């Protein structure tokens, strides 16, 4: 058991060192979001800068991709999800009521 744990820990340590963007894979801290969102505003948009591309594995964790996601998620998407859930729940309730009382309205 100890041997297995030590092997697992070794693998984790090696993975931690190898993975280039390991810090960004850690559980997301919402308090960091505001800092990360502010970053693009401070970076001057110079054409000579290296632009992260979709094929760059590190690019996915750059703040530039965090910003639109953080802005897109808000209210309309939440309302869309709430609307769909409410309809699904209402249909479920109606179905249950109908099964309990199939002759209702006859």
């Amino acid at each position: 058991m100890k041997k297995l744990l030590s092997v697992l820990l070794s693998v984790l340590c090696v993975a931690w060192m190898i993975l280039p963007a390991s810090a960004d894979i850690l559980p997301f801290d919402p308090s960091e979001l505001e800092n990360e969102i502010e970053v693009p505003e401070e970076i001057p948009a110079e054409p000579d800068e290296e632009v992260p591309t979709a094929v760059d594995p590190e690019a996915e964790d750059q703040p530039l991709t965090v910003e639109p996601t953080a802005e897109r998620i808000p209210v309309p998407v939440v309302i869309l999800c709430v609307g769909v859930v409410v309809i699904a729940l209402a249909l479920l309730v109606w179905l249950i009521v109908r099964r309990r009382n199939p002759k209702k309205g006859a």
Partner: protein
Amino acid sequence: MLLILNSIAHFLVDALCAATVFGPVRAAGDTALLILLYNTLAFSTQCLVGLAADRIRRHGWAASCALVLVAAGFALPLPPVWRILFVGCGNSVFHVAGGSMTLEDSGGRAGPLGVFVAPGAIGVTLGMLFPDWGWIYAPIAVLAAVLIVPLSTRRSPQSQTSGQRAIPSPMLPVILLTLAVAVRAVGGSVVSFPWKTGVWLSLVLTLAVWAGKTAGGFVCDRLGPAKSAIVSIPAAALLIAFGSAWILPSLAGQFALNLTMPVTLWLLYRAMPDAPGFAFGLAASALWPGTIAGMLIPLTGPAAWILTLASFLFGILAILYSSKTIQRGEDSLPPEKESTI
């Protein structure tokens, strides 16, 4: 008489809600979030209100209270959020209550439904364009609230319980029709009308919507739901997808598109005749998520055309399938003594 009063009340409710949002609420400052809140209250809650209405069955009182609530939301000196709560909840309750009364009294016809739903479009447009007219609508709405109660209590007990019997397995048609409403809203949100620049052109477009909804019920009674869909939806799809840049094709497209609205609603009611409030509320609830989804899909050109055509194609397939399934379900019901169908 009650149908005419409910139709006028529908116009007043939608006009007062729009006048509140685009009048006092807008004047108070940032409105984007409040408009989202209003639409969520007014639309997404209708299926829940419908479930409650089908159990309580006091549609006259509910409609009357909703009218007063909406008038108060416009006229009282309330903070913007409270105004939105008043008019949003009032709108939701009135639509379900008025729609339930109309469906129950329709005698199995779609015509009255079209007459009831159509004036709302004019109300919304006038309320948005002329918010100050709300001071005219508010006292009339209170008067209508007073008149609705005695008229609704005079309804026959037969109509209040609906004469039709529930079909054995309506779930798939109900889901398909609900999806059709949502998908049609997605397709409708993608299209824009660049020629709609002034007040008069907005009113003309609204008149086409009103005429389409009103005619839709009668066309459905005359041709049946399947033929109505076949006549109207392909024409609407082509005219709206490819002709929205010009006035006349757009007007004809809106007329044809709105013909199907009472057809879908009436089919939903036929699928669940024991739950008129839920049938009406479910269709309205599906509109808002569909509209939001359409707003979140930034398409132009051919992509927008394809989405519009696909949404309309789904609508016609849903109506055809549901119509056939519901008819088969109704035919399979055993004959009943004192049947009123």
